[in-house]
């Protein structure tokens, strides 16, 4: 039987780039690459709902999360210190298929890079990573040991290519693609890969329960409406129905 919310004791909570934090929790946690936890960093009912955050890494039961401060929930979490508690439920969702072989491209936008460290560590393949950011690049230093080539794009040109990361990517060079980031970026990746190379997309949606009960997080797929938190967050590109 799965456990309900439990406390993770914070080992560290560090701002690794403006507004981007990395948190490490002590404990005996589990999970597969691409799975996520529902997280509450506060007592009481404000905010009311927990927040979904991906597993960035798991080592000896210690869990690492990478998150961007966007609103109230992540702001509160960013203020927590070593020794404080973070209440978490998981691991949830299906996770990435790690059995793929050949040449693999990981394509990320912004904090969509979060699940890629744990994924790269678990893929036995030749991996290139393509990461786009608004300005500063982050987290790539930790991923570099597990990948062959790193391609960076920033919208302001401060690091790497100036523009979108998809401009650097050539689908014909890869056997499999994994992507995580803003939905518009993932749509471009899916269109580029269509009919050429299989792509796995980690979808995002607002969640209430995270366990498949509320039907708040569904996306349209070829099989009908499916739950990002249960059938996903990882879907095959050809299963996701895109709307122009």
């Amino acid at each position, binding site marked *: 039987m799965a456990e309900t919310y439990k406390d993770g004791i914070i080992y560290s909570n560090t701002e690794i780039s403006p507004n981007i934090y990395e948190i490490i929790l002590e404990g005996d946690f589990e999970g597969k690459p691409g799975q996520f936890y529902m997280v509450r960093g506060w007592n009481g009912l404000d905010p009311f*709902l927990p927040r979904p955050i991906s597993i960035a890494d798991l080592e000896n039961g210690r869990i690492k999360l990478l998150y961007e401060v966007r609103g109230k929930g992540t702001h509160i979490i960013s203020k927590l210190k070593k020794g404080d508690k973070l209440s978490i*439920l998981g691991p949830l969702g299906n996770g990435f298929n790690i059995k793929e072989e050949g040449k693999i491209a990981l394509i990320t936008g912004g904090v969509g890079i979060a699940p890629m460290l744990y994924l790269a560590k678990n893929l036995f393949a030749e991996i290139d990573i393509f990461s786009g950011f608004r300005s500063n690049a982050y987290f790539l230093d930790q991923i570099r040991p597990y990948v062959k080539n790193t391609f960076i794009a920033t919208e302001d040109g401060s690091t790497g290519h100036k523009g979108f990361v998809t401009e650097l990517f050539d689908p014909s060079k890869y056997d499999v693609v994994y992507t995580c980031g803003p939905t518009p970026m993932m749509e471009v990746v899916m269109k580029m890969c269509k009919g050429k190379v299989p792509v796995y997309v980690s979808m995002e949606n607002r969640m209430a329960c995270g366990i498949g*009960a509320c*039907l*708040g997080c569904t996306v349209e797929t070829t099989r009908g409406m499916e739950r990002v938190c249960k059938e996903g967050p990882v879907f095959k590109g050809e299963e996701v129905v895109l709307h122009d």
Partner: protein
Amino acid sequence: MTKVNICGIEFKNPVIAASGTFGFGREFEEYYAIEKLGGISTKGLTLNKRDGNKGIRIYETASGLMNSIGLQNPGVSGFIKDELPFMESKDTVILANLGGSTLDDYLQGIELLNETSVHMIELNISCPNVKEGGMAFGIKCDTASQVVKEAKKISKKPMIVKLSPNAENIKDMAYACVEAGADGLSLINTFNALAIDIYKRKPIFNNITAGLSGPCIKPIALRMVYEVNQVVNVPIIGLGGIMTAEDAIEFIMAGATAIQVGSANFVNPTISIDIIEGIEKFMEKEGVKSLEEIRGIIGRF
């Protein structure tokens, strides 16, 4: 100690999982034995399968949330085939929550449910998130009364009617439904509400308005249960923002025989167990032998 009886059906405790917040129980079974619950109200069913609404479906608000799921469900037949066998295997009361956009939808749904093992029908005339459906019946007494009367004629199961807080007058509505034959009432469903994205200068939800639930609605829900208890003589199931055993006991004191736990399930999947245990502790501590002793106690003042 915590047993309650509603329309001849025994519940081992007064805590029921609310429709739309508990699916068909499968997801929660991963966290605890769901037969510990007094009952489960299914996700709102419609005669035919529905995909639900497009666009944002969930939006958080102060001490609650808004939803516009749009009754995504497998349809009555899909429910009977794929979900009911699992629910039947658990020893708890099953309430089939049934919505519809025409009178005929409701009647056909009831006919199918009549032949199953569900214990009760919870007639949903109060879903605010589907066009020309559900809630349209739950605003005006005469339309509500008409559906309830026809539904009651053919229902072989005890039938409780789930009321909308958006009804023109909750007391009149409750009275009209009971006159029309409702064996019990559950209240309340979500409030019609609005949220705006000020940067896009657009409503958050495609349907513009959506249903508000959670602790922010509790005091109003409680008042409505209290008022309805003054005018009807059938069992009332109270809900709206219940998060704790204390909240549940307030509803019982306002006149509810049982309560439902909705949005709270999203805050913590095992919260209903805490509420059941909390009610038992309260009864022990306060020397309450049966919930009958405190039910509606507020109405006597």
